[in-house]
């Protein structure tokens, strides 16, 4: 009898745990939604902050976020795709080189975001930027040796590289071997086969990887805290050496550093809501694409 009670309560506890997690997710989303709903107007999305960020919209932050993820994808997706091609098409599973790369990808996925931020400062800003400054101008004028959108997006590209590699590799592996063999049998070289047969058939996976990376990049704040995000800018970034505003950073600043936190609370909720919806849509798109991919692989 005791056993039965224990068993029943164990099953109940496990069900309750799952329920708690789902409930927290729902409460989370509903709280953010209710808090931000009133303030969420078309104007809020398309206007710049006004009156010392206590009024107005978040347009520059949205533009900055979009630019950031665009540049990040331009840098990260090709590298990630090529790495995935190597791992899936060329790599000898047991070679040390392959193991090294796999280990690096896994490690990279576990490095804290803030360490990427430090790396961005130490490598991109101080080393590369400092080098570019002394090489290009030589006058001691600081142009590249400071945070800007280029360094921030490159830092973010490193952070999201494992995401791209893992999804693209999965997609490449789901391309049937018959396709490759058919192409090879018709006299195409390996490289031709990859470019003309394998990659076009894996485009959904490349897209999924890009979307997941963009979702991650749009939400991360720690790597850009000191590699180029700005508190407030009166104008939109127009060159690679400009600083930029970003949604997550904007939310962080408004919620912790603003002089009157209470007054801007609804703006904060609305910003959080926009950010949440953005990442929600991106992740949702990725899930749909991926399930289609998996259905085809079966």
């Amino acid at each position, binding site marked *: 009898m005791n056993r039965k009670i224990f068993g029943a309560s164990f099953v109940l506890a496990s069900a309750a745990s799952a329920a708690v*997690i789902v409930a927290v997710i729902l409460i*989370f989303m509903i709280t953010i939604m209710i808090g931000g709903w009133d303030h969420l107007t078309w104007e809020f999305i398309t206007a710049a902050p006004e009156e010392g960020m206590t009024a107005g919209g978040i347009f520059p932050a949205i533009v900055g976020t979009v630019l950031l993820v665009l540049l990040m994808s331009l840098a990260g997706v090709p590298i990630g795709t090529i*790495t995935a091609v190597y791992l899936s098409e060329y790599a000898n599973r047991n070679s040390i080189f392959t193991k090294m790369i796999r280990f690096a990808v896994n*490690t990279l996925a576990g490095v804290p975001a803030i360490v*990427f931020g*430090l790396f961005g400062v130490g490598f991109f800003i101080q080393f590369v930027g400092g080098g570019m400054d002394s090489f290009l101008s030589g006058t001691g004028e600081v142009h590249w040796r400071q945070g800007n959108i280029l360094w921030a997006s490159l830092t973010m590209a490193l952070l999201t590289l494992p995401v791209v590699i893992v999804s693209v590799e999965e997609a490449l592996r789901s391309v049937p071997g018959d396709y490759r063999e058919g192409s090879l049998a018709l*006299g195409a070289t390996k*490289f031709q086969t990859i470019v003309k047969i394998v990659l076009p058939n894996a485009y959904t996976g490349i897209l999924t990887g890009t979307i997941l990376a963009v979702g991650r990049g749009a939400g991360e704040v*720690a790597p850009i805290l000191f590699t180029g995000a700005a508190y407030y800018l009166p104008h939109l970034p127009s060159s690679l050496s400009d600083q930029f505003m970003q949604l997550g950073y904007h939310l962080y600043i408004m919620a912790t550093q603003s002089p009157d936190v209470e007054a801007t609370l609804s703006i904060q909720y609305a910003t959080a809501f926009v950010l949440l919806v953005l990442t929600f849509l991106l992740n949702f798109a990725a899930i749909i694409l991926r399930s289609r991919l998996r259905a085809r692989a079966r």
Partner: protein
Amino acid sequence: MYISIHRYSKFNVTIQTDQKKARGDTDRSNGRPTVSTNRSRERPRRKKKRYGERLAETLIRAVSFTSFAIIILIFAFVFREATPLFFPPAQQTVTTEDLQQETYGDDESLSTNETIEEGRKRSTSIETAGGEADFTLDNLLGDEWQPVSAYPKFGILPLIIGSFKVTIIAILFGAPIAILAALFTAFFAPRWLREILKPTIEFLSGFPSVVIGFFALVAIASIFQNIFGYEYRLNSFVGGIALSLAAIPIIYSVTEDALSSIPKYMTEASLALGATKWQTALFVVLPAATPGVFAALLLGVGRAFGETMIVLMATGNAALMSLDIFKPIRTMSATIGAEMAEVVFGDTHYNVLFFIGSVLFIFTFALNAVAEFYVRNKLQKRFRGAA
């Protein structure tokens, strides 16, 4: 058969490379003898194409090396900025009172180039005796973190304690829930519910950490203060609970995968012997999946330990040495996040922040390495032995 292939050297090459990959694939072993005989008959034009092919492979290989290079570069550059603490250059850049006053006078002007340049000039011009370097090292292991003061104290002990405290709270709270939920999903839930549960909980991992931090700041902190009635609104307890929201999806997802990958015959054997479903889950499947659960915990710890934005927003950020969970804390990651933007390049404070970053990096690196090698090998061996 062979002769017809012989004419198309391209084809042979591809068979050769293909075979390299599929070694052990017994049904394709007929490609090999053609390769060696054919090579001598290569015409120059064909050779050119092969060079192109080889070039492509080399380039792809080189690009794929990027990931490894990045790890090396992170090691090199994060550590490089921390080394002046231990191997002070002849002209030590020790912070002094006047430097502090000048650079921390107003935050806004700090980002301007003049100040940085000026600060650097000043800091390199200050010469100090060798004895001062020991002071820094002692200072580093002290129990006070006051980087911005007349006599800066860089004791990272409270920060380490803060990081561990909040991580432990997050794991103690999050891990049981995540593992139980994974058990429920894998065993007790009906199929339709499973199809909903897994994506929903994994969806939580897509939440931006800054939004979780914001939620903790405006909602969780107030609710808990009403319930527990503690003094400080933001403390390690609130931070830990918020952090568990980031750790739960990872622990859940990896545990669920480990549980589902347990061979069917194990559960079936247990059920056939008359064990109930929960007995099977608790005494057969969970022990068999222990390495996977352990890996999930390690990944969860790594995620919680390195997380910045949540703890930055929800823990109060006071570097206190206390074991009281309702007191504010300051973690290592939050310290970097809060202070890095305001330090002067080359300053001791700057180096100390990079040192903290190195510690974070080593810790998460070690966690990942353990999860990667030890756990995976053990899991594979266990199943190989069983099967």
